[in-house]
């Protein structure tokens, strides 16, 4: 995590202090800021820490008192809950489905969106600008607008409760943002480069694969991270369009009803389901931050 985190600091402007005197007064003046930040930082970590520790307690220990008692007698932790979780076929199946859907619904929209974005950015054809405006308009269509008709369509097409059904739905709803982001990125590719390639007789397909895609990698990376996080963490779509083949979040959602009695399953499942996105996030934090900025700041 530290290397990824270092990426963030690199953007920080460095204020150069001159001399020991000013530096000391400055440090003292900032003591309250430090204290406030330490408290806030610790506070922000408590909930996730609580989940992790709870996931390491035996049901009887968890029933006895708060997870913070763990710090008083840290010898009681155990990985039994995780072992039991991985022995639970329902959970492992849900994790496999989550992985399949996430991989499919990340690669597919990137391929489809970059092709479309290339056409919208670099191929002249009538109605191009209108098409892009429609895509921008679709950006704001809430998922809810599609759930009922797609639920019924899937029942007739036998796509209900299938991995391809989930992938296609996620892909379609990822496209407007993906096309929007990539078109704007591709449009920034130097014109001379494109012209030179065209003069050399490169076909559109060749241009796309050999010039635009490689140059677009930073944007594609940002997009991929967003999509992984979004699809992996989705609850609503999986809840509506799947049942026995539901990804992890919707699969466990029903367990929330007996909250408390099944914490030994809920806590490790919730924590483990958070580990993958956390890992992705930690590894590619720079792209994530850049994507956030590109997506929202004009």
């Amino acid at each position: 995590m530290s290397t990824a985190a270092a990426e963030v600091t690199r953007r920080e402007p460095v204020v150069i202090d001159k001399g020991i005197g000013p530096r000391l007064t400055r440090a003292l003046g900032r003591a309250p800021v430090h204290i406030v930040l330490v408290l806030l930082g610790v506070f922000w970590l408590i909930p996730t820490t609580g989940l992790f520790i709870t996931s390491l307690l035996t049901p009887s220990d968890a029933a006895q008192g708060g997870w913070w008692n763990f710090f008083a007698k840290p010898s009681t932790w155990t990985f039994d809950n995780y072992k039991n979780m991985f022995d639970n076929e329902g959970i492992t199946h849900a994790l496999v489905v989550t992985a399949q859907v996430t991989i499919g619904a990340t690669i597919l929209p990137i391929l489809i969106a970059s092709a479309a974005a290339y056409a919208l950015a670099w191929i002249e054809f009538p109605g191009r600008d209108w098409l892009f405006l429609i895509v921008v308009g679709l950006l704001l269509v809430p998922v809810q607008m599609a759930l009922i008709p797609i639920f019924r369509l899937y029942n007739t097409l036998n796509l209900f409760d299938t991995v391809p059904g989930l992938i296609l739905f996620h892909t379609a709803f990822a496209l407007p943002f993906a096309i929007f982001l990539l078109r704007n990125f591709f449009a920034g590719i130097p014109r001379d480069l494109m012209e030179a390639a065209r003069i050399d007789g490169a076909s559109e397909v060749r241009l796309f694969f050999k010039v635009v895609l490689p140059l677009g990698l930073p944007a594609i990376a940002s997009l991929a991270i967003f999509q992984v996080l979004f699809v992996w963490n989705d609850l609503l779509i999986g809840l509506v369009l799947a049942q026995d083949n539901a990804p992890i979040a919707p699969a466990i959602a029903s367990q929330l009803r007996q909250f408390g009695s099944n914490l030994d399953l809920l806590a490790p499942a919730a924590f483990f389901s958070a580990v993958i996105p956390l890992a992705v996030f930690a590894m590619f934090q720079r792209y994530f931050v850049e994507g956030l900025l590109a997506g929202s700041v004009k």
Partner: protein
Amino acid sequence: MSSTGIRTEFPPGGEAPSAPSGTSWRSWLVPLGFLAPALLLLTVWVIYPMLATMWRSLFSDRGNEFVGIDNYERIFTDDRLLTALKNNALWVLIIPAAVTAVGLIFAVLVERVRWSVAFKISVFIPLAVSLFAVGVIWRIMYQQDPDRGAINAGIAAVQGVVSEEGVLSTARPSSDALSGTPQGGLTLTETVGPGGVAQLGLTAIRATEVPEGSEQAVRPEALQGGISGVVWRDFKPGGGTAGEVEDEEVGLPGVTVELRDADRKRIDSTSTGADGTFAFENVPAGEYRVAIGSQTFAQPFKGINWLGDSLITPAIMFAYIWVTAGFAMVIIGAGLAAIPRDTLEAARTDGATEFQVFRRITVPLLAPVLTVVFVTQIIGVLKIFDLVLAVAPGSSQDNAATLAFVMWQRSFSGQNAFGLGAAISTFLLLLFIPFLVINVRRFRAEAR
């Protein structure tokens, strides 16, 4: 700005190096090849369902009857939907402003420390965690029992410093010689004058709750010019007479006894000894009432019911802010980094205080970025669903419900109310239209 910064201008078109030109169908064919998969998916999975949902919203829940705008009327008449509307309004009013403010504060603070990375990581983590996991996390945090829920444990710890649990939290009068309530204090029904002896018997005290160091209760001697008395546990195994101090009955030390005048105004107070006795000396002639102060009966902190009907929405909102603060901090932090240092330094050399610099320079220069965060949050908050489902227990779900939640609940959680669900979805879309218009306008303006 990062290198992925968006350039919204279209690449100078018109005289563009055109695709291998030929017949007009070919000029369509190439772009179509690139666009076809996207167009197909968008048409089947977004555009067709969107139109179908609008159409469906005009029919009854089972779909066999045209009902016009009845489903939309239900949004504004059904009790649960009114609650959802109210909650959505609260979310929109509170959260975008709160998240923007928290993000701004974090971004400004974090700029001033060298170890900002550690802080950023801790605020960033929730952003990657699924809202479902966030739900589990906060269900654990919000548990009511202060021995299990960390939030209530924190409050109990703070409160324990301010006010302690009473010596006797469960005690009740042993006879009707005492009246009143534990909350208001128990008072002897009969008045006492100087030289009188007050006997205040209590029961319903578990053996384990008898204060440490208590001894056999003693009926004190009358006190010349004063009032004496005893507070004791008026109970002994095998019975005994209520209202009388007997063998094996213990005194209750540490109890606050108050002396009140005829107007029930407290004029003195004292504390009982190991045998339960107490004394007020030098009491002027008159009639008084002797009472046991309410603090004796103070209940231990039972925990705030965060997940109950009344607090559930604020509780979910807090969890949401916990998740989103990192997002706001990053965006605003980037805007902050783009502010020219010279401007700030110039203001400081001119003698502006840090707060003035913040108010008059930083915030106005950040306005566009703050707007972006604010608008993004409105859009996100209007669709809020996951957190409601994950944090609210079944019993308070109706009070936590939002439009997106009721849409799912009524359509897919057993009731198949597709007509209503379609109407709620369409209503949500309508709420987005202002943002849609803003977006489209912005891009058309930039395209020119």
